[in-house]
């Protein structure tokens, strides 16, 4: 039995294709990209050894400092927004709508699978000022307020971005957290209700502690995605106005492919990787500690 289940040739035949493609297309390029960080130039112009220049440039580059700050700001705001809206929705599904929630769950989830660019173009038009007054500004006008130049101002552009990304993903987090909430045993809730807990107190003292593990994994998943955000920003604002909404991913893309600076681009990519590993580790550690303390 051992021989058949542990047959080396079969293992090789089954594993080799996946491992080979994965190694060639992902692992080797990762290491290769590390190598690029000590070079200057691009595939078209050729490479020169640059030592640690790219790293010293990284730490003194105000554009990178801005991009890093924006990445962190975006990740915190959007992660909190996504998980919070998702959680409120999932509570709505489980405790209020109950069996009627299936249709609403399905509808609210749909934007999750829409192409990001389609969503971004749609939101550009929704928040448009001129030549057409978009629905959002039309609504403001109806209340007697002035139209707002949504995408032309850094602060407003961030608001539109936040609204769009939360609109796009709240259905996903709602379904994710919903799966956690329906796992809370009904008798625990019943017991708490008999003890007089209801509404907010039930949620705060029973539901949140019991769904804490799912909340944490949602947070980790969300922050991992938001730190790597590219599609929605590239399509909605293109990083603008100016570079006001440029995260590290977009800075890396621009540096590498618009300016043809591979070495520096690879250095930014490395910084991004380190950042996302650190953040995941941090959340994981803190959540572990909290869980043991109960």
């Amino acid at each position, binding site marked *: 039995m051992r021989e058949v289940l542990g047959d080396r040739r079969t293992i090789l035949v089954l594993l080799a294709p996946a491992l080979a493609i994965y190694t060639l297309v992902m*692992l080797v390029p990762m290491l290769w990209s590390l190598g690029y960080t000590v070079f200057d130039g691009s*595939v078209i112009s050729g490479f020169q050894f640059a030592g640690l220049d790219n790293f010293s440039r990284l730490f003194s580059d105000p554009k990178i400092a801005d991009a890093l700050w924006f990445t962190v700001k975006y990740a915190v705001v959007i992660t909190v927004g996504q998980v919070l809206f998702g959680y409120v929705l999932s509570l709505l599904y489980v405790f209020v709508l109950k069996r009627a929630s299936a249709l609403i769950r399905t509808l609210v989830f749909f934007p999750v699978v829409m192409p990001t660019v389609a969503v971004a173009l749609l939101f550009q038009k929704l928040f448009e000022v001129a030549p057409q007054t978009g*629905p959002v500004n*039309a609504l403001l006008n109806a209340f007697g307020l002035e139209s707002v130049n949504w995408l032309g101002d850094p602060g407003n552009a961030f608001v539109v971005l936040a609204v769009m990304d939360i609109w796009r993903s709240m259905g996903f987090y709602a379904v994710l957290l919903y799966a956690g909430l329906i796992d809370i045993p*009904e008798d625990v809730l019943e017991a708490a209700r008999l003890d007089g807990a209801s509404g907010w107190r039930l949620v705060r003292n029973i539901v949140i502690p019991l769904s804490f593990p799912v909340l944490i994994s949602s947070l980790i998943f969300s922050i991992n995605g938001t730190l790597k955000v590219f*599609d929605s920003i590239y399509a909605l604002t293109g990083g603008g106005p100016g570079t006001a909404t440029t995260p590290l991913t977009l800075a890396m893309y621009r540096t590498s492919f618009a300016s043809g600076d591979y070495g520096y681009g690879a250095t930014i990519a490395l910084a991004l990787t380190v950042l996302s590993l650190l953040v995941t580790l941090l959340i994981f550690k803190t959540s572990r500690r909290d869980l043991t303390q109960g």
Partner: protein
Amino acid sequence: MTTTPLIAPHADLRTGERPAPRPRRRRRPMRTLRKLPLYAVVALLLVSVLYPLVWLVLGAFKTQDEFLNSPTWALPEDFTNLANFGDAWGSVSQYLLNSTLAVFPALLVMLVIGTAAGFALEIMVWKGRNTVLLVFLVGIMVPWQMILLPLFTVYFQAGLTQTLWPLIITYTATGLPLTVFLMATYFRAIPREVFEAATLDGASMLRSLVSIAFPMMKNAIFTIALVQFFFMWNDLLIALTFTTRDELRTVQAGLLNFTGEFGVVQYGPTFAAICINVLVILAIYLFLNQRVMRGMAAGAVKG
């Protein structure tokens, strides 16, 4: 991610509803009144989700004149005006074709070799399989920006940037880590005795994989296929980086280009182009929404 699955492997796969609440004792009119704010919240939610989509579809029927001179919430004057769709279809059909040609071969190859690898890592018994699984997990954690530059160099020097091959290859590889990891998790649920029995009956492990594992895993494979389909179809970063010619653009990269081509001022065709792409996804989603939702949630918790 190295997170231990915080939800039991299959708990998130079911759409179990809670048991029906016990019948209420009395129904008072007060109850309906108290629920009024709640109905308002649900209505607001539905409007905020649905109105942008409805507005999008309506826009696809409007003429340029209506866009510029009628209020934005006005209905189109002529619902039989399909000119916008006609204008958009030429390029959009090319984008759809490119996406199809890039995504489906990648999806097929990835599923076959990913399932085989998951089988080798979970059912077969050998030293070092946990290490290999961890190596695959690295691919889930590290941002794709880390692999773009070397890959572009290779594709460029091999002269592949004039074809769809870079997309097919890259999609296959980037989809593998999650697929292998999920398949390994799903295989864990099949008792190894099943395969031991098959072996006693004289089946080789390859035979067991084809005749037993594949049929038993049909649902899991389909769910993963569906989730990965959406990831690949909606990818922008890879499509943008590796397609240099207009004729090769996928749905996402093409839509971005579309506004450029017609200028931002050409509303109708842009709306129609977005609309076609959303409808394609909607058609798939309408049939498979429960599976899509479950699959995506499963991928997230384990990913």
